[in-house]
C-alpha cells in the first residue's frame, strides 16, 4: 500500500512536520538526539517505518536490512555506513540527504525521490528502482548494477566512477550533466530517454 501521511508538530502554530516519530518537530523537541536513538530502536523492533519523519537526523552504522519504509521523509538526513539491504521503500523523500557508504542492495523501491542527494560509495545493486527520481544527485563511487531502473530519472545528475552494468533502462531518463568513468556494460541504455526530443509525456 503506497501512502504518505503528514503528521504536523503538535505545538500550536508550528508548520513543521513531526520529527522522529514524536509529536514534535525537531525544533520543538526537547531532546532530539535521544529521540533519534529511540526511533532507530523502535524501527528495528517493529521492522516497519510508516510515515516517519527522519528529516535532519544523522545516523551512523545502523542496520535497517529488510525494513519496510512507507511514506517516510529523509530530507537533509545524513546516513553513514547504514545497511538498507533488502529493504522496501514506498513514497519516501530523500531530497537533499547525504548517503555515505550505505548499502541499498536488493531493495524494492517504488515512487521515491532522491533529488539533490549526495551519494558516495553506495550500492544499489540487484534492486528494483521503479519510478525513482535521482535528478540533480551527485553519485560517486557507487553501483546500480543488475538493477531495474524502469521510469527512473537521472536528469542533471553528476555521475562519477559509478557502474550501471546489466541494468534495465526502459523508460528511464538518463540525462546527466556530468558523466565520468561510468560503466553501462550489458545494459539497454539505448532504450533510455537521452534527449529532450524523446520525452514520454
Amino acid at each position: 500500500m503506497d501512502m504518505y501521511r503528514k503528521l504536523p508538530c503538535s505545538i500550536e502554530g508550528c508548520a513543521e512536520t513531526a520529527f522522529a516519530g514524536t509529536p514534535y518537530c525537531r525544533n520543538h523537541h526537547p531532546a532530539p538526539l535521544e529521540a533519534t536513538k529511540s526511533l532507530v530502536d523502535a524501527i528495528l523492533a517493529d521492522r516497519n517505518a510508516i510515515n516517519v519523519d527522519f528529516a535532519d537526523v544523522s545516523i551512523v552504522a545502523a542496520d535497517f536490512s529488510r525494513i519496510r519504509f512507507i511514506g517516510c521523509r529523509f530530507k537533509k538526513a545524513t546516513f553513514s555506513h547504514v545497511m538498507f539491504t533488502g529493504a522496501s521503500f514506498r513514497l519516501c523523500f530523500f531530497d537533499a540527504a547525504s548517503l555515505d557508504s550505505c548499502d541499498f542492495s536488493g531493495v524494492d523501491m517504488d515512487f521515491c525521490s532522491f533529488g539533490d542527494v549526495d551519494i558516495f560509495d553506495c550500492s544499489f545493486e540487484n534492486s528494483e528502482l521503479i519510478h525513482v527520481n535521482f535528478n540533480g544527485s551527485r553519485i560517486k563511487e557507487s553501483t546500480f548494477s543488475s538493477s531495474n531502473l524502469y521510469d527512473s530519472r537521472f536528469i542533471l545528475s553528476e555521475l562519477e566512477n559509478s557502474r550501471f552494468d546489466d541494468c534495465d533502462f526502459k523508460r528511464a531518463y538518463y540525462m546527466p550533466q556530468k558523466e565520468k568513468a561510468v560503466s553501462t556494460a550489458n545494459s539497454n541504455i539505448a532504450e533510455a530517454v537521452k534527449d529532450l526530443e524523446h520525452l514520454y509525456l
Partner: protein
Amino acid sequence: MKLYQHYSIYGFSNAYIVANEATSAAIIVDPAEINTTMIEQIEHKAYSLKAILITHNHIHHCRGLKTLMRIYSPVVYASNTKIFDVACKKVRDQDIFGEAGFSIKAIAVPGHSQDSIVYKIESCLFTGDALHAGVIGRTTSSFNAHALYERLESKVLGYDDDTMIFPGHGPPSTIGTEKKFNLGLKADYAEMLHQSYDFFV
C-alpha cells in the same frame, strides 16, 4: 492525510487517492484507470469518495472517470464543464474549495493544454502534465511554452521548497529540487541541447 499512488499502464500515468482519515472521505486525482486495487483501498477503509479532480482533459488522465461515476457519486472538478458527458464543476484560477475535509486550491497553468490545473492539498501539489520531475509538460508552440514557464514561475515555484510534487507521469519530486534541476526551467541548457528547439523557454 493518506496518499495512495497508482500507476496506469494505459498512458503510463499516475492516479492518486487522497484520503482523510478524520472524515473517512477520499478524493481521486486524475483517474487514469480504475482497477480493483483502487476500489479495494476505498472500500476496505470505508472511505466515502467525495470528489474527483481532473488536472486536464487528456484521455490517459481521466479514462477511468466513467467507470467511477457508475459506482460512486462524487463531484468532478475540472476546468471543463463536461468530460465524457460527465458534468464537471468548473474551477478557475485561485479557486479554493473544500472536499473530504481538505481545503483544495486550484491553480491554472495553461501551456501543456489550455485547461491545465494544478491542485494544492496541504503540502502536496498535484501537477498533472504541467510539471514533472526534471522536465515541464510538452507544448505545441513556443507561445504555449512561454505561457507554461511563466505560470509555473509565478504561481507554483513560489511554494515552500518542501512542498511535494505528485505529477501525472513519472516519479515524485519537491519544489526545492525542481527549482534547481528542472531542464524545462533552464533555458540555456535546453538551447545548448537543441539550438533550434523552441519547446522550452
